């Protein structure tokens, strides 16, 4: 009975090797699947002053880290049909928006657009809101909802456009209150650009 046992062992080993190979191939295919649109960026929100006295300007920075291999359209893509990156605050009473500052994108070519560059953000981009707290801004803690909208692609496929809700937490203080400059490394660097 040694021969049948050897055959069983050999066939079982073949099955095991093939099953492992199949599992690895399946895992490789899974990893080739694109991620969800909302997962290709990570965001961090910073404010420039704490607290923010009434009558003062302050800034909010949204630092966007884009997953390696992906890009998103800049705020001013070169073609009108492309979906731009936007940052939109919903301002509470007494807080006004002076400006939204979008850095310029990079002109890059991709395999699907070898002749025509696209204006895109890659790696890390910092978007800024220039705000001011007016005399009617409510004193105390305030939450400012902000929506980041973008549309990202890799070298061969695009993810659907997505809106990411963010929240900016600030403390509004009386006019003349001393405040501390926060995160100069972010605001000084992005102001210089």
């Amino acid at each position, binding site marked *: 009975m040694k021969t049948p046992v050897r055959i069983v062992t050999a*066939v079982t080993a073949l*099955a095991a090797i093939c099953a492992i190979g*199949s599992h690895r191939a*399946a895992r490789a295919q899974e990893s080739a699947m694109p991620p969800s649109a909302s997962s290709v960026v990570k965001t961090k929100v910073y404010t420039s002053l704490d607290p923010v006295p009434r009558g003062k300007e302050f800034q909010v920075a949204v630092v966007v880290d884009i997953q390696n291999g992906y890009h998103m359209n800049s705020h001013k893509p070169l073609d009108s049909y492309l979906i731009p990156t936007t940052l939109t605050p919903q301002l509470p009473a007494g807080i006004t928006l002076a400006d939204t500052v979008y850095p310029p994108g990079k002109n890059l070519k991709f395999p*699907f657009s070898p002749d025509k560059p696209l204006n895109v953000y890659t790696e890390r981009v910092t978007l800024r809101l220039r705000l001011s707290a007016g005399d009617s801004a409510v004193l105390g803690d305030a939450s400012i909802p902000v929506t980041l909208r973008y549309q990202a692609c890799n070298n061969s496929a695009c993810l659907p456009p997505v809106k990411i809700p963010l929240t900016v937490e600030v403390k509004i203080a009386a006019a003349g209150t001393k405040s501390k400059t926060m995160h100069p490394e972010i605001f000084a660097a992005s102001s210089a650009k």
Partner: protein
Amino acid sequence: MSYVKCSWLLCAAALLASGALAACGSSSAKVSNSAAGLQSAPDVTFKNLEGADVSLSSLKGKVVLVNFWATWCDPCRSEIPALIGLQDKFASKGFTMLGVSMDDDGVKTLDPFIHMTKFNVGGEQRIMDYPIVLGTDAITDKFGGLLGMPTSYLISRDGKIAKKYIGVVNEQQVIKDIESQL
């Protein structure tokens, strides 16, 4: 070990091996096929640009390349000339393209795009003249969800998903795949 026990062991090992070999075979180019056989395409009904219903099942008997795309998607636009070429090459042999637009504002964006945008197909300026319908999230859910665009499904004559392509299709590969279904 008795002869009967050995026979059972051999049978079990053979079954295990055949299952694993089938799994190995399915892990090559055909991305979404199950080892046991092809998965049926979902029973979905689209709206065409005139507002009429177009069910996928009504195309049974034809090989169909269902291509999810959007006007804002540059990789999708880049493969349109190849897709027009596929329709030219295979339409008379029982094949059809079916472009499924995922543009949020539907006909408003699509109508001018389809009639005005020209693509270079072998040196000739062509519009997107294969059938286009409107997609919805409910429809993509029935295909198992749409993570990226373009995503295409090659449907066999009997309504089975023969292959799924994520990203821009490789023209030579998709021609081979279509020919294998015709």
